[in-house]
């Protein structure tokens, strides 16, 4: 990308400049974080020890990569082969997503170089221990599931076949691991009934986290299809998107009912009339993230329109992100007695991680058979004029200018 930048000196695109500036600031923030400690780089405190990096990078990152296990299960366990074309990009997203979660953890953990301690020091009573192991194992599974794509590009038939031979147990392991830790991220909060607000605390929190991960994961698959079309001219056919959208509606519907039921059981509905601050945040999350997407997708006419699908999927993803942020931040503020707002350095790190993910995704799509079955020939054509097609578009343009 950098060499492309220099060769096209006349006018670097807007997004390229943004990326470079973000990258430089990110490097500086990293230096501050590791030389001066968490207090200097974040707004975290003893009253509020978990913030944006846990709430967004870890909770959302893990959840949004849930499309990977949903899709691989759909294709390789439920044997719905027609969804096969989207398995690869979804796997890539999942794998990148988990790597980026680990990057986020490297920033959030007080002593991240000790992260391997979980391998030799065990506490099987700790949900965090289970999350750590499942994430480690599942990232490995994702790497192995994704490896055939790389082997195909490198024309290594032998290793590719070996992995394909063990694909079924691998996918089953992936679904099990994913189910376990998607729900365990919710289980983390089971231990603080006196701290997490009634609108979010429920004994079925792990199950809710799992269901919303499935819904959010499907939403992400649809959203990615939209981005891929804009950036790479690749997209999903409607006959695949539509059933995905229908599944998402069902999942969101079930989730919505479970949510309302658990809140009613906790007596939390009273907190909505009139809405307190937490009440408003819940209404935003539930209204935009559950009710609206379902309402949009119920009429068949709307499901036939790709734009309607994408908008609904966006909303579902937004609702998912908002839910994780509400559980980790909003719902914990009242008991903590402080308001938490991430520092600009925390935001920079999170943005940089997202940008890194998008750039890596674009690079991978360029050089690996993600959307095609055959490896792409190295590009020799002149780069197209830069458009404002977003960072992925700029990455493609930059990548096309050089090897």
């Amino acid at each position, binding site marked *: 990308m950098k060499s492309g930048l220099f060769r096209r000196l006349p006018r670097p695109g807007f997004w390229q400049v943004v990326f470079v500036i973000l990258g430089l600031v990110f490097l500086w923030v990293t230096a501050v974080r590791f030389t001066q400690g968490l207090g200097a780089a974040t707004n975290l405190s003893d009253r509020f020890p978990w913030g944006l990096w846990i709430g967004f990078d870890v909770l959302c990152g893990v959840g949004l990569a849930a499309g990977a296990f949903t899709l691989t299960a759909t294709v390789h366990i439920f044997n719905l082969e027609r969804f096969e074309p989207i398995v690869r990009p979804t796997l890539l997203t999942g794998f990148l997503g988990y790597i980026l979660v680990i990057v986020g953890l490297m920033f959030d953990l007080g002593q991240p170089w000790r992260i391997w301690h979980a391998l030799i020091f065990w506490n099987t009573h700790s949900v965090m221990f289970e999350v750590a192991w499942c994430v480690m194992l599942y990232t490995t599974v994702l790497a192995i599931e994704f490896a055939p794509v790389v082997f195909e590009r490198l024309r290594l038939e032998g290793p590719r076949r070996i992995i394909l031979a063990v694909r079924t147990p691998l996918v089953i392991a992936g679904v099990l691991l994913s189910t376990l830790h998607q729900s365990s991220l919710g289980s983390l909060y089971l231990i603080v009934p006196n701290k997490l607000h009634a609108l979010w605390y429920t004994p079925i929190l792990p199950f809710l986290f799992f269901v919303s991960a499935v819904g959010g994961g499907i939403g992400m698959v649809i959203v990615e299809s939209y981005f891929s079309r804009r950036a790479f001219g690749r997209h999903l056919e409607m006959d695949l998107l539509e059933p995905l959208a229908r599944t998402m509606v069902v999942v969101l519907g079930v989730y919505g009912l479970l949510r309302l039921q658990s809140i009613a059981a906790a007596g939390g509905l009273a907190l909505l009339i009139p809405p307190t601050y937490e009440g408003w945040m819940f209404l935003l999350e539930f209204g935009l993230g559950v009710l609206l997407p379902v309402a949009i997708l119920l009429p068949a006419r709307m499901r036939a329109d790709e734009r309607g699908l994408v908008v609904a999927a966006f909303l579902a993803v937004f609702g998912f992100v*908002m839910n994780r942020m*509400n559980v980790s931040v909003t719902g914990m503020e009242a008991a903590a*007695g402080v308001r938490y*707002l991430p520092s600009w350095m925390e935001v920079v790190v999170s943005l940089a991680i997202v940008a890194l993910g998008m750039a890596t995704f674009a690079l991978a799509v360029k050089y690996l058979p993600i959307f095609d079955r055959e490896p792409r020939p190295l590009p020799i054509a002149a780069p197209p004029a830069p458009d404002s097609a977003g960072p992925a578009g700029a990455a493609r343009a930059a990548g096309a200018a050089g090897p």
Partner: protein
Amino acid sequence: MRLFAATVVLVAAPVLACAGHPVPGGPVAGAPETAVSSPRPALDVEVRLPSDLAFAANPDAPAPVLFRHETHVDSTAPRCTGCHPGTFAILKRGGPVTHADMEAGRSCGVCHDGKAAFSAADSDACELCHQPPADAAGQAAGSAGGRP
């Protein structure tokens, strides 16, 4: 610019979730009034100040030094943190103190500098610290000295 809008939405979501209370406030969970700075006298509580500390006299001292907590601490409203553990250890008996230390502003000299309390260098004040052996009981209490 839908990508831009999408990115904005995905960024706005977490920021929104962290956004402050529309109603100003958000009380800090009951902050205490003050720390230990102004203790209220507890009328019926018996405060057992540590016993007197006797420091052996060195040859050119007029008499051994007897440190008494009673003359330094208000037993109805004691404030141990004024001296402990910054200037003096609280868990173990400290070593002997020289006038050089005190006049350099260490140990007893933190207060006995002529400003907070009489100066340790004041030659008219020797007997205030260097007390000739009084009654046997006082001496016994003094030499028993120190904290357990």
